[in-house]
């Protein structure tokens, strides 16, 4: 860990101004906001992040969870993962989010980790997290050690020849299926960014993971109002029973009427370089009768562009089984 300056912000404006002094907002940002610290502090200890200044935003009034005027839900950036997971409205109307959060990390980590921090969670690729190895995400142009290396946990969708790092979050998979929007306050004013447009696939610049610029501070995440009779589910598959990142996961938000699927949202975790929305699967599902054969076709469609690396070929089939099972559970009559 390198020496850094620690400051506390007392207002959102002040935090934005502090953040705006950073030359970049992505990898190696020289100013970093800290909330729960569950990702950032680890990476600083590993020398993978080396900010000169750490701006503590825990004092900002951004922890509230409240219903919005249109009947949706606004989740403050600093709402802890455990608070969101156990919130009665989340449990009632957005079960997929509660299930996703509770499947991730450990109770201790969930008590610290925040909604916005989780949105910005970094990959668990071992080569990213060890400075002894080449990594384009960490050191652009240095090469990708994961390709041809230990990549059992890594991505099969959205990869590039420069990066196959997987996005490890569970929360973000659920938020993708829920079509959340992310409210950002920055030097140029306020923006509301659909989660679908928030993450960047690695391409040739895997060091840039999202659209945030210096000074941009996530202040909240908004969920649209729940459509009537919609059900949702999150299924996470991994080697052990708890406290492990997903090999594959699926978030489903679905409305079935008389056996026919009216609306489906499908997002995948553990297999994509970003939280992975599968419009291909949704198209197969919508307008058709819910049955296992249809679910399997949707799963095939979701994975048709998968490009496995040397060790993670099994994830293609695993993700398909995950989708089929998650759809089966979420469409079972109550």
């Amino acid at each position, binding site marked *: *860990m390198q020496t850094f300056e620690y400051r506390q912000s007392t207002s959102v404006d002040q935090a934005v101004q502090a953040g705006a002094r950073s030359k970049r907002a992505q990898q190696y940002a020289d100013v970093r906001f800290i909330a729960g610290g569950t990702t950032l502090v680890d990476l600083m200890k590993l020398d993978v992040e080396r900010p000169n200044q750490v701006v503590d935003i825990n004092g900002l009034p951004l922890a509230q969870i409240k219903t919005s005027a249109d009947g949706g839900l606004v989740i403050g950036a600093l709402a802890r993962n455990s608070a969101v997971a156990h919130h009665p409205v989340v449990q009632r109307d957005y079960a997929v989010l509660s299930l996703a959060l509770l499947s991730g990390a450990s109770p201790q980590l969930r008590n610290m980790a925040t909604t916005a921090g989780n949105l910005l969670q970094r990959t668990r690729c*071992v080569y990213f997290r060890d400075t002894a190895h080449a990594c384009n995400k960490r050191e652009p142009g240095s090469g990708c*050690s994961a390709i041809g*290396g230990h990549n059992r946990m890594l991505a099969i969708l959205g990869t590039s020849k420069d990066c196959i790092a997987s996005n490890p979050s569970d929360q973000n998979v659920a938020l993708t299926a829920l079509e959340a929007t992310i409210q950002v306050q920055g030097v140029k004013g306020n923006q509301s960014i659909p989660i679908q447009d928030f993450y960047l696939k690695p391409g040739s610049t895997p060091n840039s993971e999202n659209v945030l610029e210096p000074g941009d501070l996530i202040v909240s995440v908004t969920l649209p109002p729940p459509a009537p009779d919609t059900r949702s589910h999150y299924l996470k598959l991994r*080697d052990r029973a708890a406290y492990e990142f997903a090999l594959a996961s699926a978030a489903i938000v679905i409305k079935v009427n008389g056996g026919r699927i009216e609306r489906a949202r499908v997002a995948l975790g553990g297999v994509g370089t970003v939280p992975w929305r599968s419009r291909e699967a949704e198209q197969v599902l919508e307008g058709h009768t819910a049955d296992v054969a249809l679910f399997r076709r949707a799963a095939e469609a979701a994975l048709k562009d998968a490009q496995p690396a040397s060790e993670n070929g099994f994830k293609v*089939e*695993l993700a398909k*089984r*995950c989708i089929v099972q998650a759809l089966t559970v979420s469409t079972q009559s109550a």
Partner: protein
Amino acid sequence: MRFEEFVEFIGSQEGAPPKSLDANAPPPSAIIGAGVPRIDGPLKTTGSARYAADYNFPGLVYAVPVRATIASGKIQRIDSSAAEAMPGVLLVMHHGNIMPLYRNASGGRNSESRPAFEDETVYYWGQYVAAVVAETFEQAQAAAATVKVEYEPAKFNVDPSLSDSLPPEGEPGGPRVMSNRGNTESAFASALVKVDETYITPVETHNPMEMHATVAVWDGKKYTLYESSQGVMNHQNVVSQVLGVPKENVEVISRFIGSGFGGKLFPWPHSAIAAAASRKLNRPVKLTLSRKMMFSNSGHRPRTQQRMRLGATTDGKLLSLQQNYRNHTSYGDDIRENCGEATPFLYSTANLKVTSALVRRNVGTPTPMRGPGAVPGLFALESAMDELAIKLKKDPVELRLSLDTLIDEEKNRPFSSRHLKECLQLGAEKFGWSRRTPEVGSMRKGDLILGWGVAAASWGANRGVCETEVSLRADGTARVGCGTQDIGTGSYTVIAQVITDKTGIPVDKVDVVLGSSALPPGPTSGGSTATATFLPAVIDGVNAAIKVVLTVAGNTKDSPFEGKDPNSLTMTAGRVHEKGAPAASGVSYNEILHIANLASARGDGKSGGLGADPKSHNFSTHSFGAQFVEIEWDPGIARLRVSRVVSVIDGGRIINMRMATNQVAGAIVMGVGMGLFEETIYDPRNGHPINDNFADYIVPTIADAPQIDVHFLDIPDPLLNEYGARGIGEIGLAGIAPAITAAVYHATGVRVRELPVRIEDLMKTNAVT
């Protein structure tokens, strides 16, 4: 390390043998075997037990190692100028500037024979190449990151396949014959039923909760080392040689240890680095290993590759058993994983041969891990037995029962106490084995497929030399001192129970002092031998202390027994009385001490190793067990879980049922890790153990722990000590992994011969769905 070598290491041939179990003697009091809660529990649960890294002293400074980022080569240059200019930095040590550290040849056992910074050669990724000492940990850490090391890399090899070509058997470097009887080749050739398969166990890394740490304090003449050690006496012996100072100038203290699993048996190089820095700076130095460092710098269970050939008659008689195994070792040390530990005597067969070979890799030096040799060896043997049972269409429990023997056919001696048959029978009953249907995939629970598997377990039993001092004190308490240590297994409590049994002093009034090399020499906590070793020395010490009390009772003016021959007196439940008279007629021992104006009565205890007892040469001593495992396989989502384990252990008399159960339950969870999760993976491009962290090297969580049912036969072994106790630290792990893979086969039809079982193994074939 062969168990026999370990026994030699603990010194079993020395000293007078203790009394062995007397069949006519009255049984011990109820305290022996009782589930007494650990007496150090309150210290641990309140955070007041101090572990090595918890020691702090005025002026303490911090050492942080710099580690090699190549797997083989030479250091060309070390540039520490930036580090030396950083705030708080006091010293940068490396091979070019460190005071000499030596090898050891005069007894004791080191982990890596090469001391830190011996020369410019790098043998494995992560090897210590320098260390930075600074006023704070953070300063040392930041400075260590700036030390630039230039290397001339050399070719290296971390190939997981151990199929290297070897010189022929018997030639230098060729396979070594470990056991041989009859004619295996011709017996195998003539057998009508054969199994010929190769089994592989991966590198596993010791991950005790408490990582290694040394706090070294140099006082101008003497070193005090606060360590996390499974053997304070050995650590003192070895490190004094490494530092080149007399043994009495090193004291090693390990009051509490957050477990070791073998990884803390012998000193690792960081200990002498901290000591050398302390001497150089004349300041106390703390050096703690990170979890990452644990994967390179403090040992591992080596990878094994074992070809098993079993030949049988169609009715299940074992004609021939061959085990040809290899394990990897480092460039510095020849560490032989004794995979044939249990093979020569577990089943009856006239023709048997075991050979062992070493294959060198650029890895740190391997070291024993819980059940070294036997645990990977039994994975191969018991897997092969399961495959044989299937070929014979015989129930795997029945096959094992039919091949049971009460004679060690290797040594041609009876076992001192072998009850494998009873373990299998009781386990089958508790597990409900009779309800098993043998067809693959035939047992269901809703959408889940159940698999039931079984394996036998074995581990050696032995006893080394030990000394103790036991004081019965006038305030009604007792103190026991012994230079062994409690690595979390319960040694503190077991010793207190013995004092209670012999004196009536309650366990909470017994002060057990362990974990210092300044105490009377006690055993290393390894090989499941510590309990059997210190029990007789504690008994000898307490008997000597009682003798002092009785002598004083007869000699002291105004004593109720003044003038009595001490031999006519005895002590029962803390009361001194005349032999033949009821205990109630006597007076308490502390009253005698008060009358005589004595603070305490001290007895020095000593007991010898098992080998010193001529009777032991007529017997073979081992523990046995049977493991029954249920797995659940959900093919719809490729989910594999171990759901239920029944473990029956024949480990002699159990001294503390609670802690023994705890040991075996913990071993079962460790076995789930061995079966399904654990594997240290070396990146073939650079030799880095790439999953050197707890997100990528996964171990079971509490959610992965199956329903566990542990039973002990609790049959005393008459040979080992007067209680008939053996040891139960390791055997609980033996047999779990092969029982898991047998269960996986039963559920899925996929035979996994290379651990760990991965879900992709079960997805890619025509497994049952």
